[in-house]
């Protein structure tokens, strides 16, 4: 880790503390959002088996569904990844945070947006059932403000780097934040999207909000955390750069594959399918880069839960994205589109990839910042319950969704597809319960890493001392 080693001398302990408390605060609020969002998710899972469970307007399924997705996206994943992004940007640039104050303002705005959005949706203020942009537009502007502050702060931090090069992590983290500002603007401006035009924008938005925001931030975290955990450089820096540019070029074009067989122009759908295949290039390039970095270190992996989390996340990235490519083919969309298979896919990617990556990143890096550790038992419990739970979840919905699609193709009465899904809905609830339990353990682990007994006074300071001696 040449790039880290050189510059520490310019940093004071106050700067370390400021960075650590920003990182911890983002993590803590993200954890609360995770508990809330997945608690809501679990309640919804029960409703598939017992539709009268949790009656009334405030708990009706159609209001909880966007609350679950938006709280997961913009509460949990976004806030957690921005916290990680600040830490990675500052440390990999060997400098302090450009402005801790801006980071705190951003945190307040992110949380304000998520809280206001949740309340608005529960009161029935939904901006049109348009996936992931359901919050009323003024609330989405708050989120946009938080994003822009974050981008500014990240750029300022990296601009102060002590080395000439910009480490690859920062390409992804800053890029992802700026691109998402553009996505948010495209989505919020109302003047050009009516009727079918809005369908085109929805296709673009719902895919980009996921793949040009969470994916780059996660990949940026990988590129920093993996070398850190393994004490070896990334397998190929050039491959990482190649994946960066190909991802940027291909990903924005594939959104229309969410509306195959719809009245959107056929060429738009076909273009989306072609580039869905092209996405295999950055996905396989990126994943093999991570896997080759880990190669030959299986023994370390077994002893390090942070590595195990990241390993699962890399596999989740590889599988989930490859599955996405396959799903885009018309012949398979014919069976799977509009079924629960899609719900399985979105959890394989948002959970198996993004959530596991967030956890791996936090378990790897947060203790370095705070000097406090979570227990191995806590990490193990979290890991295994989350892994087994998500396995059950994804597999049951993949099988059930396929049956649902085939029922329709066979021309059975529609209600038969509802009846056939019932046992798979139950299994989804079982998987979901395990996942939720694992999040309770995660919350405990976060508590330990932020407020538990300190292992060392200031890990960074002591490491600097070691390095100075060396």
């Amino acid at each position, binding site marked *: 880790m040449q790039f880290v080693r050189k510059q520490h001398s310019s940093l004071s302990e106050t700067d370390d503390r400021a960075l650590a408390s920003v990182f911890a605060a983002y993590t803590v609020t993200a954890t609360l959002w995770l508990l809330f969002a997945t608690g809501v998710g679990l309640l919804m899972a029960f*409703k598939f088996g017992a*539709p*009268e469970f949790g*009656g*009334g*307007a405030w708990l*009706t*399924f*159609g*209001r909880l*569904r966007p609350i679950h997705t938006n709280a997961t996206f913009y509460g949990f994943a976004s806030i957690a990844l921005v916290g990680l992004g600040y830490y990675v940007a500052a440390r990999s640039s060997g400098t302090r945070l450009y402005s801790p104050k801006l980071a705190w303002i951003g945190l307040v705005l992110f949380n304000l947006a998520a809280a206001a959005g949740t309340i608005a949706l529960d009161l*029935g*203020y*939904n*901006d049109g*059932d348009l996936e992931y942009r359901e919050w009323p537009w003024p609330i989405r502007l708050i989120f946009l403000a938080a994003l822009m502050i974050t981008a500014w702060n990240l*750029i300022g931090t*990296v*601009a102060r780097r002590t080395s000439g090069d910009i480490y690859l992590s920062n390409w992804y983290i800053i*890029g992802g934040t700026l*691109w998402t500002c*553009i996505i948010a603007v495209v989505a919020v401006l109302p003047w*050009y*999207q*009516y*009727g*079918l*035009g*809005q*369908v*085109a*924008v*929805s296709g*673009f938005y719902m895919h980009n909000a996921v793949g*040009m925001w969470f994916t780059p931030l996660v990949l940026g975290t990988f590129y920093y955390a993996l070398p850190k955990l393994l004490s070896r450089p990334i397998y190929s820096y050039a491959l990482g750069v190649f994946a*960066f540019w190909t991802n*940027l*070029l291909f990903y*924005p074009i594939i*959104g*229309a594959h*969410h509306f195959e*067989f*719809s*009245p*959107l*122009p056929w060429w*738009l759908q076909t273009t989306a399918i072609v580039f869905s295949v092209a996405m295999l290039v950055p996905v396989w390039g990126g994943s093999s880069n991570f896997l080759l970095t880990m190669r030959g270190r299986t023994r370390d992996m077994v002893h390090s839960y942070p590595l195990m989390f990241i390993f699962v996340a890399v596999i989740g990235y590889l599988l989930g994205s490859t599955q996405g490519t396959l799903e885009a083919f018309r012949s398979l969309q*014919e069976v799977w*589109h*509009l079924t629960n298979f*899609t719900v399985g896919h979105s959890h394989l990617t948002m959970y198996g990839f993004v959530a596991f990556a967030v956890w791996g990143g936090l378990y790897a890096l947060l203790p370095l910042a705070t000097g406090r550790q979570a227990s191995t038992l806590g990490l193990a419990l979290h890991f295994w319950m989350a892994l087994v739970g998500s396995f059950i979840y994804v597999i049951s919905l993949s099988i059930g969704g396929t049956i649902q699609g085939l029922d*329709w*193709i*066979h*021309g059975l*009465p*529609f*209600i038969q597809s*509802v009846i056939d899904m019932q046992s798979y809905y139950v299994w989804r609830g079982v998987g979901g319960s395990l996942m939720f339990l694992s999040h309770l353990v995660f919350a405990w682990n976060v508590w330990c890493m932020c407020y538990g007994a300190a292992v060392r006074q200031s890990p960074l300071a002591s490491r600097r001392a070691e390095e100075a001696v060396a």
Partner: protein
Amino acid sequence: MNKLVLIVGGSTLVYACLALMMGVLPGIELSRVAAGPGVQPLTALQDEGRAVYVANGCGYCHTQQVRPLGQDKVFGRPSIAGDFKYQTPELLGSERTGPDLTNIGVRQPSEVWQYIHLYNPRAVVPESIMPSFNWLFDVVGQAPAGMTPVPLPKAYAPAQGVVVPTHKAEALIAYLASLKQQPLPAAEMAGDESAMASPPAATSTPEAAAGGYDAAKGGALFTANCSACHQASGEGLPGAFPPLKGNDVVNAADAAKHMQVVLQGLHGNKVGGVIYGSAMPPFAGTLSDTEIADIIDYERSSWGNHGQPVTPAQVAAERAKTK
């Protein structure tokens, strides 16, 4: 600093161009699509109902897009661009936990059914997992003048008083009733037909009807098209939907009337001295002669009924009469 500008600025510029190309420009272009033939803006009440639909996230389980695929034929003709002229926000949806609603105003025209179903879906469809929207209704001692209470089955009705819809429920049902596909000019329909994969209807072979009728097929068609109102038991719902069990028309030797009702639908019918206000949709446009014959024969031989069976040829003859 230069490197930072190059990487961050360059990639952002590339992304902005792609966002423009794949998001904004298609958005602008497709917003200009003209309304299809007969496509009208909603009335004020229907528009209010659409807002209720959006606020309560109906769009997360119900799509409003019919694909040019065989399995979507039950929901109507394939959607075309002009159908969406007045649909902002768009409600195409991404999941079919429940059925597609593009053409629900035609497929289920009975307001009474919609009200019962909205109050508690299981009152009419026992296997349904849709939430109850009973909070869109009021329970009152007596229905206000000019308002008919929702005729709920006893098991689902409140112990005291009668159930009447709130304004929001009325708006929502008005919106659902407005969801009717406009027929397409013949030329466009021909193009759509060729794009269709083999529809399920093609599997009903003429031989099946030779030795009587295809009971399994008839039962499945009944479940898909009729049982939501007439119920799997054939007993209907008292005060809302007439029974088929022991029904005179169903048991009459001359099946002409029975066939006419299925082909053309019915409104304001009197069965066993009771008048049923809810409308039954016509099936002439959606079901083939063989399918209608299967349904009729299923009804005529189930629940202790013993009406004379009909053949697809007879249905075709009845169909020709009204043309």
